[in-house]
C-alpha cells in the first residue's frame, strides 16, 4: 500500500498509509496530514485514491503546490515524488506500482459513478470516445535514420525515418517498408514480384537489417540509407 512520509531537516516526523478515498494536507489541525509551517495553507492539497492511482490536487492555494520542484494543479503521484511544503517534505512511496510489469496484469474493478453500467447507453450518448494515449515507456530509445534519394526527379532530397514505418515504391505495384526498431532499421518486401536490392543483392522475403551507407534499389529508385 502507498504511504506518505513527512520529514523536516532530514528527520521523519510522521507517516501514514493512503488507505482513505481522500487524504487532506494542510496547516489546520483537522487535516489528515498536518504541516505546521506558515508557508502552508490551512487547506493546502488533497490526495484522492482511484484504483491504483493517487491523484494530488492543489486546493487553489495562493502559493501553489509543488511536486519535485514543479508547480501542479493536479498530478498523478509517482513512486518517490516529493511535495515541498515550506520547510517540510512530504514523500510519496508506492513501490508495488513502480514495477510496471506487475501492473500489466488485467484486473477487474468498479467503474466510476456507475459509468460502467451506463456505458454506451444514456450516460453520454454523443460523447466521443476518450482518447487514451498509449503507455509506451520513454526509456526505449530508437535510432535515427534517414534516406537520401539518389536518382529521379527527387534526387538529392532527404527523408527522415522518424516514424515506426515508412513505405517505398507504389501501392498495387511494388511496395517495400522500412521499419524502425530499437536495434536498427529493417527493409521488408510488401508486394510486387521483385524484391528490393541492398548493395546489389536481393533481400528476398525476410526483413533485412540495414547498415549506414547501404544503397537500396527498388521500383526504379536508388536510395542511400544513413544512420545518425
Amino acid at each position: 500500500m502507498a504511504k506518505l512520509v513527512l520529514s523536516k531537516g532530514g528527520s521523519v516526523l510522521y507517516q501514514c498509509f493512503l488507505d482513505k478515498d481522500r487524504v487532506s494536507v494542510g496547516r489546520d489541525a483537522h487535516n489528515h496530514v498536518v504541516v505546521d509551517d506558515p508557508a502552508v495553507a490551512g487547506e493546502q492539497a488533497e490526495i484522492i485514491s482511484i484504483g491504483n492511482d493517487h491523484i494530488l490536487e492543489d486546493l487553489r492555494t495562493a502559493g501553489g503546490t509543488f511536486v519535485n520542484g514543479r508547480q501542479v494543479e493536479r498530478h498523478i503521484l509517482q513512486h518517490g515524488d516529493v511535495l515541498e511544503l515550506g520547510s517540510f517534505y512530504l514523500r510519496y512511496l508506492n513501490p508495488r506500482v513502480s514495477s510496471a510489469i506487475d501492473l500489466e496484469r488485467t484486473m477487474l474493478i468498479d467503474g466510476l459513478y456507475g459509468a460502467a453500467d451506463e456505458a454506451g447507453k444514456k450516460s453520454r450518448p454523443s460523447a466521443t470516445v476518450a482518447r487514451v494515449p498509449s503507455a509506451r515507456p520513454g526509456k526505449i530509445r530508437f535510432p535515427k535514420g534517414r534516406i537520401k534519394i539518389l536518382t529521379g526527379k527527387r534526387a538529392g532530397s532527404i527523408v527522415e525515418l522518424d516514424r515506426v514505418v515508412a513505405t517505398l515504391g507504389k501501392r498495387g505495384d511494388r511496395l517495400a517498408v522500412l521499419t524502425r526498431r530499437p536495434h536498427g532499421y529493417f527493409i521488408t518486401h510488401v508486394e510486387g514480384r521483385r524484391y528490393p536490392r541492398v548493395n546489389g543483392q536481393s533481400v528476398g522475403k525476410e526483413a533485412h537489417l540495414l547498415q549506414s551507407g547501404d544503397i537500396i534499389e527498388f521500383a526504379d529508385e536508388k536510395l542511400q540509407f544513413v544512420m545518425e
Partner: protein
Amino acid sequence: MPGPRRKIFRNMAQKFIEMAALTDVGSVRQYNEDNIAIDPKNAAMVVADGMGGHRAGEVASRIATEVIFNELKSYIAEFGNAASQYSPRLAVEQSIKRANKSVYEAAQANAAYQGMGTTVAVALFYDNVVALGHIGDSRIYRLRSRVLKLLTRDDSLLRDQVELGIIAAADANESHNRSLVTRALGIEHDISPHIHEVQALPGDIFLLCSDGLNDLVDDSDIELIVQSLKSNLPLAAHHLVQTAKDNGGYDNVSVIIVKVLKPFPAASQQRWVTRVFGWLK
C-alpha cells in the same frame, strides 16, 4: 506445457473479406492468456484477453472464444430461414451472453478457476454490415480513407477517469490504472455486452486487438502501420505485434485484421454458404 508461442492464420475462403490474425505472448510474460479465433466461412472473429490467477485467464479466454464460435455458427445457420428472428446483431449479443454463462459456471464449479474472467471483442460480417460486440478493454478499430477510428468504448477505469475529467488525456500515461477493467465476461451471472452495427464498405479495414497492442502502440502508429501495409495483411499483423514488443511488450498481444474486398449483400452470401454446406452433406 505452454502452447505454441505464436499462431498465425491467413484465409481468403470467404471471398468478400481477407483476414490475418496473430497472437503473441509478448516480451515479458511466461504464458499467453489471450485467445483469438477466426471463422472464415462465417466471416466471424473473436479476440479474448483472459484474467485470473494460476493460468485461469487462459481457460476463461479459451472457453469464451469456443462458446462464441459455436453459438454464432448455429445462429448464422438460421439467418436464411424466413421464420427466424435472428439478426447478426442479436447473434453476437446472444453468443457473448452464452459465453458469459459458460465461463461463470466453470469458475463456480472449480475452485482453481474462481474469479476468472475475460474481455472479448467479436465481429460478424453479414449483409454489408458488421455486427460488433465487446466487453472489457479489447478494442475494435476501423481504417477508412486512411483514418483509424476506434469503434468501441473501453470498460476501463482509466477511460472513466479521462472521460470524467479527473485526469487529462495527456497525463494518462502517468496513470497506474491502465489494466483495470470495469467489466468482464464470466464474473457475473448475467451481462449486457456493448453491441452495435456499422456499415462495412469495400476497402474498409477492421482491427480487433487486445490491450497489449493499444497500450504500447499509439493509435497514430497503428494507423500508419495498417495503412502502409494493408496490401499484405499478414505482414501488417506481424508489424503491429512486433511494434508492441519493441515498445516493451509487457502484455500478451493479439490482433485480427479484416479487409473488406467487395460488397456482400445477404443473398449472395447465403447462396455461397448454402453451397458449401451442400457439399458437406
